[in-house]
């Protein structure tokens, strides 16, 4: 832990102004303070943004849902709009961390959380993400937790969020604010693949702040399911997780969205698998084919090959459950 200067921002402009390369925003602090204590992140200035008016969840006229950057994971998971129209997101949030952490964790903080790769979190290990050019101890080390999708020679760290997997499947836009104004980035473009520059984790410039995330209008009538597979029953990051959402057209799949967690270097949307579902019968064989396609390009490391079949299993089961719920939903709609 190193000493840092602390200040509170009272407006978005104010906050954005103060952010330079050696400064960091603090929201819930559950990632930031942890990593400062481990001597992994070493900001000289910490800007507390908790006083900013970014805590609202609102339905927009076009049917989208706008979520303020500071809405906590707990509040978001239990928000009536989310529970009703985005149960997938609610499930994913509640599958993450623990109640205490979710009470502190914020929407933007969750998007910005760092990898749990043990070598990233160990200041004495080689890690290109933490220290560009130092090497990657994970590749030849214990890499059970590392990525099978989207890795590079420089980095195979998993993006560990559950919330982001649901958002990737739902589709969303981030609103970024800076002294120069606002800009919007599609959720799928925000997190970067590591490539040769794993230390550049996302599309957020110095002086920019996430102010909101806006979800696409919900698919309806649809079923969705978030399935998180891990060693123990609770309070563990995913080894593999799947967010699945689909609408039915009789026995056929109408629209489908699939995203994976725990296996990719970023929240992993699976467009090819989705294409393989659309217009096909909603049955296990279809789901299995989609799962094959989703993991087609997966490359295992020494200790994480199991994640490939596990991720397939998570997709198949999540699609099966989503289908079941879509049928229930369909029945209910029919009754109305």
């Amino acid at each position, binding site marked *: *832990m*190193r*000493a840092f200067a602390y200040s509170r921002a009272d407006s978005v402009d104010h906050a954005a102004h103060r952010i330079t390369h050696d400064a960091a925003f603090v929201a819930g602090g559950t990632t930031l303070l942890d990593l400062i204590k481990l*001597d992994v992140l070493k900001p000289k200035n910490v800007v507390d943004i908790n006083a900013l008016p970014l805590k609202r969840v609102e339905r927009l006229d076009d049917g989208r849902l706008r979520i303020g950057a500071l809405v906590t994971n707990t509040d978001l998971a239990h928000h009536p709009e989310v529970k009703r129209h985005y149960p997938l997101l609610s499930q994913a949030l509640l599958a993450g961390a623990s109640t205490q952490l979710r009470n502190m964790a914020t929407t933007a903080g969750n998007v910005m959380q760092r990898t*749990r790769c*043990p*070598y990233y979190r*160990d200041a*004495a*290990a080689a890690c290109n993400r933490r220290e560009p050019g130092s090497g990657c*101890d994970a590749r*030849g*080390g*214990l890499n059970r*937790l590392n990525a099978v999708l989207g890795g590079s020679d420089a980095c195979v760290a998993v993006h560990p969020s559950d919330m982001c997997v649901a958002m990737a499947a739902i589709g969303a836009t981030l609103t970024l604010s800076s002294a120069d104004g606002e800009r919007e980035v599609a959720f799928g473009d925000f997190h970067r693949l590591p490539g040769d520059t794993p230390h550049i984790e996302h599309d957020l410039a110095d002086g920019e702040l996430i102010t909101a995330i806006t979800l696409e209008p919900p698919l309806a009538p649809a079923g969705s399911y978030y*399935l998180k*597979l891990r*060693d*123990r*029953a*609770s*309070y*563990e*990051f995913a*080894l593999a997780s799947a967010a699945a959402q689909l609408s039915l057209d009789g026995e056929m799949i109408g629209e489908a969205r699939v995203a994976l967690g725990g296996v990719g270097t970023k929240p992993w949307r699976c467009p090819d698998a989705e294409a393989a579902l659309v217009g096909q019968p909603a049955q296990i064989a279809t789901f299995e084919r989609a799962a094959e396609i989703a993991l087609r390009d997966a490359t295992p490391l020494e200790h994480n090959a*199991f994640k490939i*079949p*596990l991720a397939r*299993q*998570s997709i*198949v*089961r999540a699609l099966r459950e989503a289908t079941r719920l879509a049928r229930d939903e369909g029945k209910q709609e029919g009754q109305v």
Partner: protein
Amino acid sequence: MNDLTRPRVIGQRTPRIDGEFKLTGRAGYTGELHAEGMLYGYPVPATIAHGKLEALELDEAQAMPGVVDIFHHGNFDTLHRSPNSMGHGDQVSEVRLPFEDETIHYHGQYVALVVAKTFEQARAAAYRVVARYRQASGAVPSLLGRDDEGLPIESEGSSRGDPEAAFSGAPVKIDRTYHIAAESHLQMEMHATLAEWHDGGRRLVVHESTQGVVYQRNAMARIFDLAQEDLEVISHYIGSGFGNKLFMWPHAVATAVAARRLQRPVKVVLPRQQDMMSGGNRPASRQHIRLGAGRDGRLTSVIHDSITETSLVDRYIDSCGSATPSFYACDNLAVSQRILPVNHGTPCPMRAPGEVSGIFALETAMDELAVELKMDPVELRLRNYAESDPESGLPWSSKQLDKCLQSAAERFGWDKRNPEVGSMRDGDEIIGYGMASCTWFAGRQPCQARVELRADGSLFVGCGTQDIGTGTYTIVAQTAAELTGMPLADIEVKLGESGLPSGPLSGGSMATASTLPAVAAAVRDALDALKEVATGNGGAFEGLSADDLEVGQGGLSHGEHRVSFAEVLKTNKLASVNGQGSTAPGAEQNAYSFRSFGAHFVEVRFDPGISRVRVARVVSSMDIGRAINPPAARNQVEGGIIMGIGMGLFEQLEYDPRDARLINSNVADYILPTHADAPEIDVELLDYPDFEFNEFGARGVGEIGLTGVAPAISNALYHATGKRHRDLPITIEALLASS
């Protein structure tokens, strides 16, 4: 009144007498204590596991705010090692002293101790200490994945008959190897020391979270060359220790040196990472079991060869085979033990040390034998039931394992088990039923205690043992209440000070059986003194003989005439009378073998579609003698069961195979069971007091609950999937291979 075969307080559900202190935050744990002028220490851990410390650059750290001093090899005091003897009561966990030389033997070995005015300053400066190493090749990261022979430990072996010949001639054979990963104790409260010197550096008072104040006092007296009277070790409240707080670790020595040199109290609380790296672990093991049996299921040969890890700086032996010779009736048996030094912090006892690992291997092998024989696993165990101890040849003091098996099987519904693999289903899940027997030896140590009956109506008991969170305070109070008829509220118990009469380690499930007899003896001694006063000159019962008096409800009586203890004392203008008790195991040790036994029945649910296993139900029966405070005893077994789920399915310390660095030294990455993993648990404590063992009939209960859980899980998984799991933990990787 004094009839312990029909007690009134002993054996009753008794709320913890220290519960209120703990709930209200008034129970001071070592890490929370504060002394006038106290400084904080933060150790700097080596970042390599094998090599040499070449240089320490301290300038930057030294200049940090609040830093008072930095201790390391270059400036540390010259001390003596502890003789490290169990028999002489000065055993330590790691005999190497801190900063002894510049060789690095394990990741996390202390290379410096930074002392500063606040904890945060000490930690910040510790991060600025730059250590330069020369890493050596050939670090040994683990016993697992290697086939080293290790060093034989003859003292842990046992043999009878001709096991090799009997094995090769056996009609049915099991010949298997089992591996268990190293585990962390992960006790709630981290290791902590607060050291304070008095009288110009001649007297040392140490607060330590320890399971053995007397052992630490003795060891520190050797290390610092002090008389035992000049040293006090205090541990009033302990946030548990599963064996890693039995014996002292180097941080305590470093803290005491810093306090002496700076002439101020110094406190060190290990951070979790360091606690896991250098504060003890259960070593990994490899066990080879060979069972020979007849077609009728009778064992003709048992051969159990084990090897476990130790460190390069001490010799720790995790004796896996120590229960095996006594477990089953079998004329031909051999048990052997070896150790392999690896580049880890020194392993140490962890709840049911050795035996829990050994029982995993043995009870899994027994299940394999049952499958081979197509015999019910309960029946197989009954066929090999040891009516007396095959190891010592002595009768058991009391053994009710058959009743445990029957009762637990019945409550579990074992008769509904279809033995065919994978035959029991519920939706997506395959249900597996498995069982295992379990055991833990019943030991007893010498113990002394002191009692004061006071004129203010209170009774004081003091004993230099500890309450590590298991409820020792309460059972000591129950004992005094039982023998005096006084209410618990009037009884004051003091434990956890080395200056009190010497008490036992809180370990090996021995504290109850060791401590209560000494407390009882001291109470009786005090009551005798009181009767002497009462019947003597000017006494409340002047002229009567002590034998005429009865003790009850906090008073003495003769017929209708009853006088409270306090009045008896006041009548003679006395403040108090004292009693001493000193007890030790005796002749019974040569007449009987003493062990607790039990059985676990486990239901697992395996969902092959998502490779998920969960333990759904555990039904256990335990034969532990008498439970002094049943809820506390049950709590020990339940905790053991949950720990067994961790051992079976989750827990492993992961050392990088390239350089032996520990990479999961935190409680997010080291997976242990959460509440959501805790199944429905039904524990029955059989009530068969073991009066051959001691007058309380108690054998102790801290460890047995853990033994046998992991094999019951692996056996249940076999029943569900048909795949035999011989390596712990049973990970998702291993489960995927069975779907």
